[in-house]
């Protein structure tokens, strides 16, 4: 696990898929919008509080001159900004939920408190998912018992895994490495221990790895 | 009929205001009843959309004759309930008591018919769970149809039972002359409740008995 400085002030997480930068882009845009609004409002409150504090000699004539057109402005402006952000987010959301046609499919079964993974080549693994770099990968997931959620912070993606039906999560990895995997939908006692990792290998390494059909836990099979 | 008038509660200024408050309070309560049943109608809509064949097949196994009779019985009980309130307005106490008792009797007969249906369905292995008849279970959604059928008609039957008790109490109080053409709010509120229970059945009947009979 290439963990960053164990508990230093490192407030960044890797961005390891094609969609991650776009999602981060929208995130930081919203952050900027929020910072601006917060600073503006708090500054106004502080300024008014100081200038018009009880007993101050500020000019208070025409205090109740209700300029209602300002009311329309601060209805229209937020509405407009919100619609812009909505369209931006809607386009991204659609891309997140529409896998490209030719994906490498990996089958995942969530079970109370572990992830069972089955690759196309027959290779199986527990709590670890090896995926190829640079090609679209689609995880076809279902659950054996309760609702879990397959969450990889470095990919900025998560998808609930439901019993009784399949849910899918697609991504295209852009950086090799090992990224933490977490279960983010509460699923019982060891919900916090249901983590694992997603290992991104280059295309050739993945093929060579997937070809070996040694069972991951290493006990000798009779064949 | 004695000109009994309401005891004006001290927080009200006029009895007209008190009547308006009771009516508004009752209608708000009826709105919560609509939404209480509404959650079940929402579950019904969701699964009817998901399993159209299952619901059609399930509906064919309900007894449409008894269902129709029940609907007629409940609608007629709404008539007698409305006539009972009309009778009180015309100060015909004896007629009002009779009509209230007839309405209660209709309610009871509805419950009786419905109990009969449940017994019949128990024998035909139509209760969900391990006893559910396998040929029906093969069609997706049929068992869900019957799960919904028992929960929704069961909750409705519970409301009919409550209504039945309310009607008996109202009949006794009317017999004792508690109400008069100028004050009969409790009977009116009881009537509103009874009509709503009838309206719920008006929707339950086609959704369970008449999904498709072809």
């Amino acid at each position, binding site marked *: 696990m290439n963990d960053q400085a164990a508990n230093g002030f490192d407030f960044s997480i890797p961005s390891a898929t094609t969609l991650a930068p776009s999602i981060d882009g929208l995130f930081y845009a919203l952050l900027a919008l929020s910072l601006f609004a917060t600073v503006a409002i708090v500054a106004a409150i502080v300024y008014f509080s100081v200038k018009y504090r009880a007993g101050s000699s500020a000019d208070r004539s025409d205090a109740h001159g209700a300029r209602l057109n300002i009311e329309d402005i601060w209805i229209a402006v937020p509405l407009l900004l919100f619609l812009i952000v909505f369209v931006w987010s809607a386009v991204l959301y659609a891309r997140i939920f529409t896998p490209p046609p030719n994906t490498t499919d990996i089958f995942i079964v969530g079970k109370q408190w572990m992830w069972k993974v089955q690759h196309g080549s027959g290779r199986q693994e527990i709590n670890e998912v090896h995926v190829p770099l640079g090609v679209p990968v689609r995880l076809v997931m279902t659950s054996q018992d309760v609702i879990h959620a397959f969450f990889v912070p470095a990919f900025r993606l998560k998808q609930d895994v439901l019993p009784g039906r399949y849910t899918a999560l697609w991504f295209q990895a852009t950086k090799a490495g090992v990224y933490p995997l977490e279960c983010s939908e509460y699923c019982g006692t060891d919900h916090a221990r249901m983590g694992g990792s997603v290992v991104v290998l280059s295309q050739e390494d993945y093929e060579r790895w997937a070809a070996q059909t040694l069972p991951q836990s290493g006990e000798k099979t009779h064949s | 009929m004695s000109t009994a008038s309401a005891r004006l509660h001290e927080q009200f200024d006029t009895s007209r205001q008190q009547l308006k408050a009771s009516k508004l309070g009752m209608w708000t309560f009826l709105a919560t009843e609509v939404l209480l049943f*509404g959650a079940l*109608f929402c579950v019904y809509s*969701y699964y009817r959309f998901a399993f159209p064949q299952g619901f059609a097949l399930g509906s064919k196994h309900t007894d449409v004759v008894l269902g129709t009779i029940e609907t007629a019985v409940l*609608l007629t009980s*709404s008539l007698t309930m409305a006539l009972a309130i009309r009778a009180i307005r*015309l100060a015909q106490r004896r007629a009002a008591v009779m009509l209230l008792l007839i309405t209660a009797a209709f309610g009871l007969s509805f419950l009786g018919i419905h109990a009969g249906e449940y017994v019949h369905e128990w024998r035909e292995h139509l209760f969900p769970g391990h006893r559910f008849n396998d040929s029906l279970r093969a069609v997706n959604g049929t068992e869900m149809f019957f799960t919904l059928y028992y929960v929704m008609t069961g909750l409705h039957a519970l409301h009919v039972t409550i209504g039945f008790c309310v009607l008996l109490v109202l009949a006794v109080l009317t017999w004792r002359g508690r109400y008069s053409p100028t004050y009969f709010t409790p009977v009116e509120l009881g009537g509103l409740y009874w*009509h709503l229970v009838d309206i719920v059945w008006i*929707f339950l009947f*086609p959704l369970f008995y*008449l999904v498709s009979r072809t």
Partner: protein
Amino acid sequence: MSNPSVRTLRLYLLVWLALMMLVALTVASAYVKLGSFNLVASLLISAAKTALVMTLYMELRREHGTVIVFAITGFCWLALMIAPTVADIATR
């Protein structure tokens, strides 16, 4: 002794008759192969019955506007709940 605000017996019986006919109609409509229109028909008939019961038996027509709004709000909120929920499974 007739109190003007009281409706004639005839009206109550007429409403009852209409309700009975609507019951017959809804049962009959189930035996006709209309496909998805079966559901629409049965809901419309039920709505008609409900309207009859509410306006006349529950005397909504004579009530203050607020009470009518309260009476209708429950059903509107029900639609607000069912429509998006069914839309979800329909577009999944």
